[in-house]
Structures are given as C-alpha cells and as structure tokens.
C-alpha cells in the first residue's frame, strides 16, 4: 500500500462541480506534479464535504484543514504554503464555527485525557481504528511477556483505585479474587451508571468500547477468569449496540474466545442489560440482577471477590477502572502514578452539569481544585450569577459551598469535607438555587430507588422526605432540624448498602453549610431563592404591565384578572405558583416575592 504524507479530498458533488471543483482538482494535481509532490500528496475526489454554498471546497488531512471558496488562481500559493512549507493559508480556511455546547469538547489546558483519549476521534464501530491507536497492544504485551502476578503488581504500582465511587484499591480486589480457591471465576464490568448527571461511562462505552474490553480481558488473565459480563443499563441503548458490535469484532479478530493471541488463555464476554433500577449499580444487587432476581443488595462479607456471581469468586470493576488498565500497561505504572495526589493517582472523568457555562465531560488529574474545574475548565457560572454550591458524587454526595472552592479534588479530601467522589457527577448550583429544595429533591430520588429490603433505608428515607417536603411547603416545625440530624445518623449507621448509607449526605451537608436556609424556611416561612412554591407569591408590577392579557390566557387556574390595556392582577389564593405567567410575559412585569 502506497503511503502518502497528506491526503486531499476535493468535494465533487453537483453544486461544487457547478462552481468549478473539477478544475480545482486538475490544477491541484498539476501543481503538485510540477513541484515533485505527486508521490507524497494524494488528491481524491469525494462525493460531499458539506459546505457547498462556499464551494469549491477541499479537505486536507491529516490536519483536517477545510479550504473553501477556492479559485484556480489560489492553487499555486496554496500548494507552496500548505504542502511545501507546511503552513495553512488562513484566508482560505473556512471561518471558525460558533462555539456550540457539546458533550465532549476539545480538552482545555488543565485536562489530561486518558480514558477519554479516543472518544470522538475514532470510529467505535471499527476495531481497526482502535488497533491503529495502539489498541490491544497492551493485551499482547501482557499475554506474551507478563505473568498474572506481574500484571497485578503493575496495577498495584500504578495506584489505580476503583472509579465507580468507593475508590477501593483495584490491585487488591484483583488479588483477592485470584487468591480465592476455585476453578471458576468471573469478571464483571459495572456499566450501570445511574447517577443523575453522570454520563462519563456512557461516553466511553459509545466512543471507545474496546478500551473497556481490553481492560477486562487483561483483568481476566490476571485473575484467572474464563467468562465475563458487561452489565449495561437499558437506558443506554446506543452503548449496548456499540458494545455488541465491539464484542463481535473482537471475537472475529481472535481477541475474545479460545486461545487469545495463540496462547492458552481463553475468555469470552456477554452483555447483560439492566431493567431500570438505580440500586443495581451496587455490586451485590447487580449480581442478583444477572442471576435473574430482584436487584437487592446483600450483606458483605462475603465480598464478591470471595463469593459472587453464581457463588463463584467475581471481580467487579467500573467501566472507567477497566479503561485505564491498557494505558497503565503500555505507558507503565510510574507514568500513571506521576499524576494525582499522594493517595489518589491518575486522572478522573467528571461530568459537569447544572448552572455552569460549559457542561459536559472533562478528564483531569486528581489534585485539581474545584475552582479550577468550575471556572477554568467549566467557564464559570451561567449568566455570570454567583456560585452557591457544587454537589459531587451523585445523589448520595454532599453539597459543598464556596469555602471549598480551593479544595484539591481527591478521595480523602472530598470525604473529609462531607461529600464523596462517587462516579464523578458534579452538579453546579447558582445563587438562585434553594438548598432545602435540592436536599428534598435528592432524598426523593433515593426514596424512589430504595430497594426496600432494609428498614433504616426504606422507612428512614421516607420519614426524611416527609419532613423535607413539609419544610418546603411552609409547614416546618422547630424540632425538624434536630430530627433530620438524628435520622441521618441512624440511616447511615444501620443501612445495608451504600445507597442507604449515603442517603443522608445531601441532608447532612446542606444542614451543615446552609442551616440558615432551613431556619428561614421553618421559622420565617421564607425561601430566599424564591423556589419553594408555598413560600413565594407572584405579583404583577403595575409599572410594567401593559395589559396584553397574555398571562391571563395562559394561566392554568385562571387566577389572573384584568381588562385589555389595563394592569392585571393575580389572585394569591388561587395561584399555584407554576411560573407560567412569568415565562410568557414579554414585559418582565411578573415579580416573584
């Protein structure tokens, strides 16, 4: 196969042809020939590039430069600059696109993309793309040069900790599973990413599934497992489809199945889908679900490493944990351990959501501060409002106020501050957020998802939700704050699994850092953020109202009266505080008090 250092695609769809792209192609080829570059630069026509109204257009690879509006006269200069001198011709380049919000943007300077390195850059449905990016080279190295113990040692030296939330030492988990006596062992990938606001795993599964598969196969070799499962939530249908294709292709290439890379090691994988239960992200509940049962956690010990799926030693790790493994093998454990803090090595993906300008996925080394994440990487608060709090770690995470903005992010420090790392969700809240409403909101989620097996979680979280709801409705009692504190302690201590144990975190952290808001709700019946409906009222400002009647026509309970061109009035006794009048008003005449 001839190798060209540059490939040029010339758009030849009818519109571009009409504008003379055939001549462009001819003159390009001629100019390259005359400069002796015909063997280095390949020119091809392509059916469509996309910006034909600016045609003729060409794309130059590998850089991806998109030149538009070309004339034959431009060609000699273009060839000289682009192909001889290696400099793009800016005046002929397509103007930069307006920056759009994306799930995964180009990395900012503070980011280090390890797990996300291929996402958006390779075709996830083509294994050869992955292989071209050193894919499966780690597996080859492991199977031909390393013993299982050596692999576990490498993971230990890297300091990799489980990325699912608990942060348990990955090498220790692998070693425990390996050391349990028995012939049958299982590997499971926990792809049941249910934390609201977290979609890091989804991006990796959809964008770079082979990185996860490779990590699992390496783990299986280290542990001595023959069969693996990827448990992926059903709410991620594209991820499931991408995984199916990836597994099929891996099998075709002999990277899954019997005698991988011609060695004695055989291993295969299956996908299992969830069925809509957040608690199945908990490892013992996940195992129960694969076994065809209700997804209820069970007490540990025994841990899955000792007695897991179908009673056999099982290693369960998160998507991101596995995705790190091939890189650790290829680049060496010291490379990984050079990033991060003393006890939290490497990088972590986070999903920024909420009131931040640039929502989406990022990957940063541990040790970066919350301020850097929210302001440098996230661009700061939307509409330049004030920062109020950030919740890390998903619905069982704590809400941290501004005094923690300079906290370096790692497992221990987030714990000490009263939150958790969790899977990496970060919900940023601005000054217009009511922290009592937020606590109620998260407890409502947890209550909904509680499996119901143990009393402290099932009943305790319901009682907490009742109290928080009463407070938000203006019926809070003075003893409620102490009662919430007491309930939190009991639920945390006595719940069977991580869902219950973490359930009080949003309440405890908001009580600790935003106690005044609770007191205002209970004693003063005031919601300063103007969120809790029972504590606010909507009024029309007579100075701004022009009497257009738009609000009255849209009010679902018909509580607004007024004549055309005269100031309208809201009846507070009927008003349900839905906010629709404020939304539809074009004169900013609706006030919230």
């Amino acid at each position, binding site marked *: 196969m001839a190798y060209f250092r540059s490939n040029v695609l010339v758009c030849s769809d009818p519109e571009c042809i009409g504008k003379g792209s055939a001549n462009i192609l001819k003159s390009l080829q001629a100019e390259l020939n005359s400069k002796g570059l015909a063997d280095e630069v390949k020119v091809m026509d392509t059916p469509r590039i996309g910006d034909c109204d600016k045609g003729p257009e060409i794309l130059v690879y590998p850089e991806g430069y998109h030149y538009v509006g070309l004339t034959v006269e431009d060609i000699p200069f273009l060839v000289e600059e682009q192909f001889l001198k290696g400099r793009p011709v800016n005046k002929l380049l397509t103007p930069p696109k307006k920056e759009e919000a994306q*799930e995964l943007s180009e990395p900012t300077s503070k980011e280090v993309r390890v797990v996300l390195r291929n996402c958006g850059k390779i075709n996830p449905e083509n294994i050869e793309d992955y292989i071209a990016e050193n894919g499966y080279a780690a597996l080859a190295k492991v199977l031909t040069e390393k013993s299982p113990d050596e692999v576990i040692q490498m993971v230990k030296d890297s300091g990799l900790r489980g990325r699912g939330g608990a942060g348990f030492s990955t090498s220790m988990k692998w070693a425990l599973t390996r050391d349990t006596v028995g012939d049958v062992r299982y590997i499971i990938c926990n792809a049941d990413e249910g934390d*609201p606001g977290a*979609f890091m795993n989804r991006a990796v599964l959809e964008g770079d599934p082979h990185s996860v598969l490779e990590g699992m196969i390496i783990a299986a070799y280290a542990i001595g497992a023959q069969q693996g499962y990827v448990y992926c939530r059903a709410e991620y249908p594209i991820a499931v489809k991408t995984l199916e294709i990836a597994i099929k292709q891996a099998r075709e290439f002999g990277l899954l199945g019997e005698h991988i890379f011609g060695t004695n090691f055989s291993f295969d994988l299956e996908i299992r*889908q969830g069925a809509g239960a957040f608690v199945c992200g908990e490892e013992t509940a996940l195992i129960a679900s694969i076994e*065809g049962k209700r997804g209820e956690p069970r007490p540990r010990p025994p841990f899955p490493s000792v007695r897991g799926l179908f009673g056999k030693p099982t290693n369960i790790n998160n998507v991101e944990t596995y995705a790190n493994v091939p890189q650790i093998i290829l680049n060496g454990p010291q490379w990984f351990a050079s990033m991060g803090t003393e006890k939290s090595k490497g990088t972590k993906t986070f999903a920024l959501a909420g*009131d931040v300008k640039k929502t989406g996925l990022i990957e940063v080394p541990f040790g970066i501060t919350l301020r850097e994440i929210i302001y440098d990487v996230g661009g700061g608060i939307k509409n330049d409002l004030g920062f109020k709090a950030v919740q890390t770690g998903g*619905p069982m995470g704590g809400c941290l106020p501004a005094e923690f903005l300079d906290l370096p992010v790692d497992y221990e420090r987030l714990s000490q501050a009263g939150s958790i790392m969790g899977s990496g969700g970060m919900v940023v809240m601005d000054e217009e957020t009511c922290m009592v409403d937020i606590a109620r909101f998260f407890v409502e989620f947890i209550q909904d998802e509680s499996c119901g097996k143990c009393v402290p979680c099932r009943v305790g979280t319901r009682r907490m939700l009742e109290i928080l709801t009463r407070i938000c409705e203006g019926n809070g009692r003075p003893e409620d704050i102490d009662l919430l504190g007491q309930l939190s302690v009991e639920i945390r201590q006595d719940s069977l699994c991580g869902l219950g144990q973490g359930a009080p975190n949003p309440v405890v952290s908001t009580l600790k850092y935003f106690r005044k808001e609770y007191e205002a709700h209970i004693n003063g019946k005031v919601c300063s953020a103007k969120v809790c409906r029972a504590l606010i009222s909507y009024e029309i400002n007579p100075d701004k109202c022009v009497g257009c009647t738009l609000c009255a026509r849209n009010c*679902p309970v018909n509580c607004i009266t007024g004549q055309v061109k005269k100031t309208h009035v809201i009846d507070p006794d009927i008003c349900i505080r839905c906010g629709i009048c404020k939304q539809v008003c074009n004169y900013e005449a609706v006030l919230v008090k």
Partner: protein
Amino acid sequence: MTVNAKDSKDVLKTVDLAIDEFHAKKEELIPILMKINQELGYLSSEALEQISDRMHLPQSQVYTVASFYRLIYTKPTGRHVIKFCESAPCHVVGGREVWTAIQKDLKLKPGETSNDGKWTLTTTSCLGVCAVGPVMMVDEDIYGNITPDQLSKILGKYE
C-alpha cells in the same frame, strides 16, 4: 411504540418466542421479561402465567422480579409512553417548568394513562444526556433542550 396485545394467542406466542430466544433458565428471566414487555407493551397476568409455566417458576417469583424493575410494566400502557427525566441536572436547568407544563397539557399525573389510551406519562431516571437537559423520551425518541412551548410540537408528532 408500545402495543397492548389483546389476543391470547398473540400473548402466548410472544412469550414462547422470548423464552426460546434466551432459553428457559432462571438467570435469563430479566432479558425474557424485557423482551415480552417490549413486544406486548406490558406483562399481563396471562403472560406471567405462561412464563411461570414454561420456566417452572412460581408466578409470585416472576411477579416479584417484574414489579421490581421500573422499565418492566405490569399494567397496560398507552400507545405512546412519555418518560420525563426528573433528576437534578435536568431539574435545575428548566426541567421544573417543563414538567409542570406537560402535566397541565396532558392533564395527567405521573403513572397515569390518558382516557383515550394515547399517552402514558411516567418519569425516568437519568438518561445520561444531561448536557442537553431538560430531557424526555417519547417511546424510543429522545428530545433535549426542551422548553414548555416546544411541547405541543413534539407531542403533535405522535398519532
């Protein structure tokens, strides 16, 4: 699109096909239930009976598993199922307003099916597309960046 099969023969045939696809082993129960749920719209008592029979599992056990999982319906649903994301990241970017509006427009509360059998309104846990919140699904279609005034256009697409 969810379809509620009324014909017993349809139900039995769907159950048999699902069990044959995954094999009648206990650990395959959830994939089987999901497949039948997808084909029939929900798990009727008839379907549960047939599953219990073929898989040699007590009906109570089949029901206890089916009722645990949110995506498996044990009651009939409308022709179109709306799943609205009620998680915090969607909530804080305008989800509250959209949720109020959709309940008002359809005159439904979560879990309810409209009298004409067209809509079932439910909430869903996070779909993982939080960067484009507020988000909702109608059948298999996902919609993002929703504002209340877009609702009639979105819902108007469905018969």
